[in-house]
């Protein structure tokens, strides 16, 4: 009964040191899949959707081009929200030791793969 999308989220935690939790949500803030234990996926989905919408406006207002991601950087960890197409988003929680190089390598392929799965939903 293993779902391929949840497997992708678990693989992200396996492949990138420092990733602790992740939630895939629709762009209107509903949970699609999550690999979470300490965070509440429904809240994370809603906050990430609101944050990404604000980020789009911020990037637009600042003339920063197309928004790639928004990052909340804390003293002991980060939350990074990336758009997955125009239908969904991915919120990743990481600790302060996040392997940023590995994260930058993995995220484009992961979002493309997630999009392929979500595009099958018609």
């Amino acid at each position, binding site marked *: *009964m293993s779902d391929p999308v949840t497997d992708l989220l678990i693989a992200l935690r396996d492949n990138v040191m420092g990733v602790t939790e992740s939630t895939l949500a629709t762009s209107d803030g509903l949970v699609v899949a999550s690999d979470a234990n300490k965070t509440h996926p429904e809240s994370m989905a809603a906050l990430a959707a609101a944050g990404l919408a604000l980020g789009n406006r911020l990037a637009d207002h600042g003339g920063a081009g197309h928004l790639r991601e928004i990052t909340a950087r804390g003293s002991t960890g980060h939350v990074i929200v990336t758009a997955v197409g125009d239908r969904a988003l991915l919120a990743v929680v990481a600790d302060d*030791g996040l392997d940023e190089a590995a994260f930058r390598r993995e995220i484009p392929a992961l979002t493309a793969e997630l999009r392929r799965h979500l595009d099958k939903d018609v």
Partner: protein
Amino acid sequence: MTQSGTEEPLADSRNVPALLSALRDRARSCTVLVTGTPGGSIHVRDGLVVAMETPGAPGIEGLLLRSGRISEEAWSAVRASDTTHEHLAAELVARGLVGAGELEVISLGALFDAAFALSLAVPDSWEVADPVPALHRNAGVTPERLLDEVSRRINLLAGEPGSVAALARTRVRSVSAAGLPGTAAGLPARHQEVLAHADGRGTARDIAFALGRGLFAVMMDLRHLLDRGLVQPHLPSAENRPSTAARGAPSAPLAGASAAPRSVPLPRREPGRNSAPELRPHD
């Protein structure tokens, strides 16, 4: 500032320890950037290793902040006072936030721990770059001493079955009995903390970052808990997800939606199959 442009290229760099030895012989000051899983940067001053940063083990900043040893405000003030980030350690001590000796212990501990974490992975590649500021407070360690300490740690952990790198990759979960009263009662507080964070999602490295402790120390504790049967390797399970198809009223009724549910006969009790009561004579 650096003489890297004027010196001859480093001939002997089959591996990172050989490169560090070559840098030691030339008393170079530089940063060795290692790529891999995990990668990291090795800060070398006058041929001696003074600090290492890697995603594989908590650094000095993480250890100080996570443990609550210094507050976020105090750390921000220290960083604001030194825009070059060259004298952060001196500033921490000058402000009385951390004792000089204590910071040296933390600095050396983080250095050995990072070297241990880097030794668990085979690096993809490495390059020597100009020195950059790194938070540290120690006189520097020779590559030989660094290697000795790393092998000592690996030997301490490898006494039991299973390789050290495999243990570092294992996601551990506390067994259900570990929550029962009395089972974990005799454990020291640091073992109980590790046990509380062993939720089947994190490796030793993740627990070390969550607790603000060293990777090697957490792995020693995990080895102890594994031997006592209080934690076990975890295999993940997953559930199905809902659809992300555009929501809205369907334009036509779904085929089959109106069909009556398939009729299934009600379960019957058959005589003799269960312990049904005997037939009474007057029925």
